[in-house]
């Protein structure tokens, strides 16, 4: 009898109105928390932007020296210490992420077409779970393979002594280089792109492809001109996702790109590929112990807000790129 009474009471207590308000309150709280976090990061980074203005994104001085000065100033220090020109870090990020995403986009498209269409059936069956597995491998394992396999290979077999000697006054070339970072990042984001592209290609309406074949267009053209074209929203989505992941990759790139705030110079010829650098996310990871210095703290949060805004702009760009493609949405 007690149970029945309690059941009635419970029924009335959890009325829909109360439930909706409670759930809504939880959603509001989480929303407010996340928005507060974003605002906090930008506000903490503001002093660094305020002092440098647009020159924050420019070049000027040795970025490592500027970080050192900020660190040495400690909790106090003049405003001059906020000087920071992040161009070497931004350039490094652009090179590594841009290079990896471009390479990955081109190759993933072909591989996705291969996996969905042109591969023999037995290969298709095995590749499907393999791609999914590779997409979920933690980045630190890719970093491990990079440091133990790619970096020694680049250091011992690709960099010649003459090249090393020619720049030895400025930087030391070892296997920790731009090309190692780009290679590993490509291998890391490719499975993600391939998985999304393949899903998109698989959801192209079959009758579109059959109609094209019936008109006498060969298999390659059918798939390329009709299938890939129709799957463009998925291609955009996959590229945006992979770029966001590459942008935020800190640990793996900190392991393989060498940690020097150096802007690789394309005019150096072949040496350009072997120059060490340090992208934005890796900079945050490596300087995170210097939070006790006010200037360094504001600078690190400024870098974090640049990453945040880039991630937001990326998803906005993805959304914008998908709008004109809406007419290709599969029926």
């Amino acid at each position, binding site marked *: 009898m007690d149970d029945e009474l309690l059941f009635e009471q419970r029924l009335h207590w959890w009325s829909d109105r109360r439930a909706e308000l409670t759930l809504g309150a939880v959603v509001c709280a989480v929303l407010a928390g996340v928005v507060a976090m974003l605002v906090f990061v930008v506000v903490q980074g503001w002093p660094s932007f305020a002092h440098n203005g647009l020159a924050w994104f420019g070049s000027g001085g040795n970025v490592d020296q500027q970080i050192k000065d900020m660190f*040495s100033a400690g909790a106090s220090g003049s405003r001059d210490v906020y000087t920071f020109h992040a161009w070497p870090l931004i350039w490094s990020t652009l090179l590594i992420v841009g290079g990896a995403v471009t390479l990955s986009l081109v190759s993933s498209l072909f591989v996705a077409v291969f996996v969905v269409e042109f591969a023999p059936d037995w290969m298709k069956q095995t590749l499907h779970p393999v791609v999914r597995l590779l997409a979920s491998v933690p980045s630190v394992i890719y970093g491990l393979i990079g440091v133990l396999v790619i970096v020694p290979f680049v250091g011992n077999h690709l960099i010649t002594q003459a090249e090393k*000697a020619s720049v*030895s*006054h400025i*930087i*030391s070339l070892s296997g920790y280089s731009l090309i190692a970072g780009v290679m590993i990042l490509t291998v890391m984001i490719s499975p993600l792109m391939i998985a999304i592209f393949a899903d998109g290609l698989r959801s192209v309406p079959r009758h579109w492809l059959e109609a094209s074949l019936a008109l006498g267009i060969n298999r390659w053209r059918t798939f390329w001109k009709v299938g890939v074209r129709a799957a463009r929203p998925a291609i955009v989505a996959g590229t945006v996702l992979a770029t966001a992941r590459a942008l935020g990759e800190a640990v793996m790139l900190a392991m393989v790109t060498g940690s020097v705030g*150096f802007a690789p110079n394309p005019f150096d010829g072949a040496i350009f590929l072997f120059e060490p650098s340090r992208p934005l996310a890796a900079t945050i990871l490596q300087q995170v*112990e*210097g*939070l006790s210095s006010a200037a360094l703290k504001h600078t690190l949060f400024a870098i974090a807000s640049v990453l945040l805004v880039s991630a937001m702009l990326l998803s906005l760009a993805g959304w914008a790129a998908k709008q004109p493609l809406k007419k290709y949405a599969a029926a």
Partner: protein
Amino acid sequence: MQSKRIGLAAVLSAFLLLSPAAASAKTLIGSGSSVAQPYLQSLFAAYHRVRPGISFLYTADGGNAGVKDVQSGRSQFAVNTRPPLPSDAGTTYVKLWLDGLCIYVNSQNKLSNLSIGELAGIFTGVSTSWSQFPGSGLSTTIDAVGRDSTAGTFSFFTAAVLNGQTQGSNVNTQASDGLVANAIKHDPNSIGYAGLARAKDPGLKKVNVNGVACAPAFVKTLKYPLSRFVWMVFPTASPDLDVQKFTDWARTSVQAGEIITKVGAVPAFNKTAHKHKKHKKH
């Protein structure tokens, strides 16, 4: 039914949340030198056996970073490997033990001696090829490995070897002492500076500086040019008493002296166990 459930929940939360009456357990939070970390780990463990209520949490982020942490209140104590500077205002430095900053090369390198001037040349980017040092038996480019500015060792090296010049951009900076040792182990063309504790590593080879070997015997008499003290740093205003007690124990007790010797450095003020050893001092 429901009251039973509430009762059970209350008991469970009490069990989980309330700490037992033996609340004298205390954690001391510190940060600083990575050179000192091998010594500190053993010293913390030994001190915990002497005073079971005290445990330590130490972050090796570099000597200079440790001092900044103490200044900003993020650590209760720090360990640094350079003497105090004016920028360390608000902190008190106490000497702990003597360490030598050794110059290491890869074990395949046959170099045996360097002068301070030659060392400065390597670490400012003036000398870049091993062919300039015939004793090494190599003719490849020098890969110099060093520390970054969070390290007290970096400040000491800049003052003692580079005479105030900045470390060259050709030097591959590493975040800790252990990372410098690892980098040298992997690269036959490398040279770098790290503490005495790394001398036990079979992949590294010590190089004499100005003809003097980096060994405890020479560090003790300060004959080795790069001998330096390891310092304990704590805030001048209201330092923690337990930190000071630990400092005294580490500086003066016999047990701490034995640990320091075993890991590789030279106790400076510790009492020794056997009386007759005192007569062997010169």
